[in-house]
């Protein structure tokens, strides 16, 4: 390996490290909620501290329990989002590409958004 190769590795790793450091060192908000959007449009916001299961358009199921959100079921064949680890930090997200669903953690109280979730949560 040439010297340039090592420089390239260090450079890319440094960029990754800076990104990760910024994300991890960001102060965590005490109150968080789960935002679900389908095809770029808001589907609903849910309290992260309230255990619940949300089914999205009969294609996906999101489970919120003990302060973490997880995709528990998806009808797509690749199941990538189902294998995604559970999320709990602000900014983390699970993306289901075939159904264009983004489940992400955002800060703030679920009630101050002014948008009532139109999904059936049970």
């Amino acid at each position, binding site marked *: 390996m040439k010297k340039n190769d090592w420089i390239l590795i260090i450079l890319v790793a440094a960029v990754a490290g800076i990104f990760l450091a910024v*994300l991890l060192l960001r102060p965590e908000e005490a109150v968080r909620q789960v935002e679900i959007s389908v095809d770029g449009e808001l589907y609903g916001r849910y309290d992260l501290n309230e255990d619940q299961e949300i089914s999205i358009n009969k294609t996906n199921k999101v489970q919120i329990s003990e302060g973490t959100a997880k995709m528990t079921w998806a009808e797509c064949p690749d199941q990538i989002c189902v294998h995604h680890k559970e999320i709990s930090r602000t*900014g*983390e997200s699970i993306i289901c*590409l075939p159904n264009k669903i983004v489940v992400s953690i955002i800060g703030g109280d679920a009630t101050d958004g002014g948008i009532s979730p139109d999904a059936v949560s049970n």
Partner: protein
Amino acid sequence: MEEFHRMPCRTEPGRGSIKTGGTGLKNRAAYFGVFTALALIFSYVESLIPIYFGVPGIKLGLANLLIVIFLYKRNAKEALLLSIVRIVLAGFMFANLFSILYSLAGGILSLAVMAFLKKRGTFSVIGVSIAGGVCHNLGQLLVAMLAVETYQVGYYLPVLLNAGIVTGMLIGIVAAEVLKRLKNITF
């Protein structure tokens, strides 16, 4: 194989000399076929190994080994063609139409960067492969961002960058070893 090289080339009589071989359309087509078949086998083998790192999009990219070797033994144009043929065929056989789009974005960006760096000559095969691995992930991430119309990919980026380094390096090391042994073979 020796006999194969001696085959007269009728399509390009001026250029494809009988003794050296390798430059004729017939040889090129044959090697292209061999590499396509190998790339497809590698794609298949990889599809059999489900590895989940908690973040989607991370895999070794075994087939890219063939793309790197082809880039060095042939040229960027043919490597690009091989890459596209491989992605479309493997996509229809082992995945779905959706994954083809992502793979194409990653594959084309990755190859463009690799071809550029190879031409500049400042990196070894391993460095070029690392750049390719990183760009492959970046290309896919960009398409994913466009597809879901979100910019919430912050956590994916550092993981995918590092994954690109590791997989690109592994592929690069193997490609360098293979190229060393293929030195005397022209195709």
